[in-house]
């Protein structure tokens, strides 16, 4: 397989996964905000922060209200809006369509056109909900199509690499939000804890939902929803597809089938060990920020290794 093609397939998968994650994130957080008490620090702005684009946002908008944030994340001509992510997916699919199943391109193309034609009318209310649901469901269809019709050769390996790395990255970003001590102080003493608890549960439940993890968490953790267990599940579970550990394990397994894999494999193992060894209880007390930040750098280094080994040298 051509190095350039490998690179484009990898990015196509990453962008497709990112589009799905963005859509789910917007959908879940829109409902979550309705449930939280006044004074909560979780705001529309948090959404921009999760995607790591707050600096760009600030140059364009004065106020981080619902309309501005939605406009920015859905259709603005910026790096991480849903529409530009889908446009990038399409562009990468368009330039690899001699490799990918024909129907995959057709569906990606359709999805992009649907988003382009409907995003502006879906900035708020019920239409936004329907719009995001449709995007998520189309992304599922495309992933399913690729899973069901692609030989397990190099092309599919790069699909899995891109998708898994994006998932590992997304898991760390979302945990970052939940661990941010976002709830306001309500009441005093023991009452304070009691007053906060239902909101905290809501917050963590929705964090699970934004990674489609709620149902699996309930089945596998068998414990009430609480911060520590949720973080542990999303970071360290080896069976849930969107948990960081599972994503990294997948990457390890895929790498075995690729030539010259030593450097990338080493970096993945290192990252996976950091995730696995994290003492969640202690980290929650001392603050997860630094840990998650370091983790994101390790994940970015995995990408660097993949690019150095298999993609075209950028001259």
């Amino acid at each position: 397989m051509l190095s350039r093609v490998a690179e484009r397939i990898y990015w196509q998968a990453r962008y497709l996964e990112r589009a799905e994650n963005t859509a789910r994130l917007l959908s879940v957080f829109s409902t979550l905000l309705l449930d939280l008490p006044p004074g909560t620090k979780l705001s529309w702005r948090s959404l921009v922060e999760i995607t790591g684009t707050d600096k760009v946002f600030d140059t364009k908008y004065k106020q981080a209200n619902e309309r501005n944030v939605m406009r920015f994340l859905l259709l603005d001509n910026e790096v991480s809006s849903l529409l530009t992510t889908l446009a990038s997916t399409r562009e990468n699919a368009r330039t690899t369509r001699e490799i990918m199943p024909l129907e995959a391109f057709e569906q990606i193309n359709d999805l992009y056109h649907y988003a382009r034609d409907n995003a502006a009318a879906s900035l708020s209310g019920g239409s936004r909900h329907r719009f995001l649901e449709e995007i998520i469901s189309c992304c599922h269809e495309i992933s399913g199509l690729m899973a069901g019709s692609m030989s397990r050769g190099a092309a599919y390996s790069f699909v899995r690499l891109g998708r898994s790395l994006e998932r590992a990255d997304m898991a760390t970003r979302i945990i970052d939000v939940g661990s941010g001590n976002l709830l306001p102080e309500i009441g005093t003493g023991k009452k304070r804890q009691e007053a906060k608890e239902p909101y905290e549960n809501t917050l963590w439940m929705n964090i699970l939902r934004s990674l489609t993890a709620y149902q699996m968490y309930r089945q596998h953790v068998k414990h009430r929803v609480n911060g520590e267990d949720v973080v542990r599940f999303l970071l360290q579970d080896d069976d849930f597809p969107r948990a960081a550990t599972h994503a990294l394990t997948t990457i390890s397994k895929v790498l075995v089938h690729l030539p010259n894999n030593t450097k990338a494999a080493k970096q993945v193992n290192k990252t996976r060990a950091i995730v696995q060894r994290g003492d969640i209880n202690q980290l929650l007390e001392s603050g997860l920020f630094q840990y998650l930040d370091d983790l994101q750098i390790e994940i970015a280094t995995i990408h660097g290794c993949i690019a150095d080994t298999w993609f075209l040298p950028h001259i």
Partner: protein
Amino acid sequence: MRVNWKTYNSGKFFDEIIASPGHARKPARRLANYLASLTHDQLLEKKRAADLAIKTMGISFTVYSDAGNIDREWPYDIIPRIIAAKEWDQTSLGLQQRLRALNCFINDTYNDQKIFKDKIIPRELVVDSANFRKQCMGINPRFGVWAHICGTDLIKGDDGQFYVLEDNLRVPSGVSYMLENRRVTKRVFPELFEKHSIRPITEYPAQLFDTLAAISPRQSDYPEVVVLTPGVYNSAYFEHSFLAQRMGAELVEGGDLVVEKDKVYMRTIDGLSQVDVVYRRIDDLFLDPKTFRKDSALGVPGIFKSWVKGNVALANAPGAGVADDKIIYTYVPAMIKYYLGEEPLLPNVPSYLCVDKVQRQHVLENLDKLVIKPANESGGYGMLIGPQASKKELAEFARRIKADPRNYMAQPLISLSTVPILGERVVEPRHVDLRPFILQADKTHVTAGGLTRVAMIKGSFVVNSSQGGGSKDTWIVGDS
């Protein structure tokens, strides 16, 4: 309201479907009857379905404009064009004959130059051509074939006879649209395919692959064939990608290829892998900055030398364009007689060479009645349609012809035939041409039909997609 062939009128032009008001030509009778059984709204509904299919299938081409490059959906008219199988078989023989003669000529030009010595064609006309590549002298590609893929433009005049308008021997495009048009028509009119015996066209990618594999320097069962594209911003990128996919070949850009020890390799995830045949879709001059344009970022440094040494095959071969020149075109009937000893089966459009003093005089005196073409432009650019030109344009072309007579030829304005298209309110006649594709290596193949291009604007003769032309599916229909 239903389609009414009695009110359909192509005026003085030859219409390929309707012979006289209300009367369809024989091969088109079933189609005409079928269309007349539908209401205009039903046809518009089918058109919408076709437009949607084209959007979904991502059939597009890129238009260059000041506002940036726009990826546009491919323009397609749902009513197929019909050509009788008997007529096509004859045309097809003529096309093969023509390409064989053209390849003899190119090989002769770069080797013995007998045709100049025998004074059939003046030597200077050829070696002064902008497409003559002196670097190619003395090279003998496999089978003596330089132009492996040819797109010949045909038109039908008032007499209903096909004429050759030009031969495209450099990087002719359009074949993917021919194939996709058929795919769309099958989605829109499945019922018509049951009633007609329409020749299939789907074997083209396999024939193209066989043609390319046949010229591989390493004769193995699995030669590495690649399609070299200038990249995603090229107007024909869709086609490059399409053909690579259908052939199961790699689609590469210049940066994917590297030459080491005069062999061509592509960069893959396993390291370097040797390439045998390059179906290049970039112009000669951009192919190799070491041999041709030094500023080319699209090409592959050293690929020309690798070809000269016989380590890689290039299709079409560099320098093949020397026969793709509107001046050399006028000599093709003479070439057929000279090299093959045969009478041309397909006529040229009568032409005047401005380089000849007597003919130039005739051209200058009749500018307002003629079509003036520069030797080397394509896509309909840089030409003058005399009867539609202003006084100022006529004067400008007279000046250009006198300044550089070698670069111009003239033809009478041939009235292109018409076929019906689906308009907003009625079915109306529009002018068409036809680009069949001919392949030559150890064997010769001709597409069943080709790409029909339509001038969508009423009365216009300009069919180029870059200038608002549309397209149609083309059916070669048998008697049964």
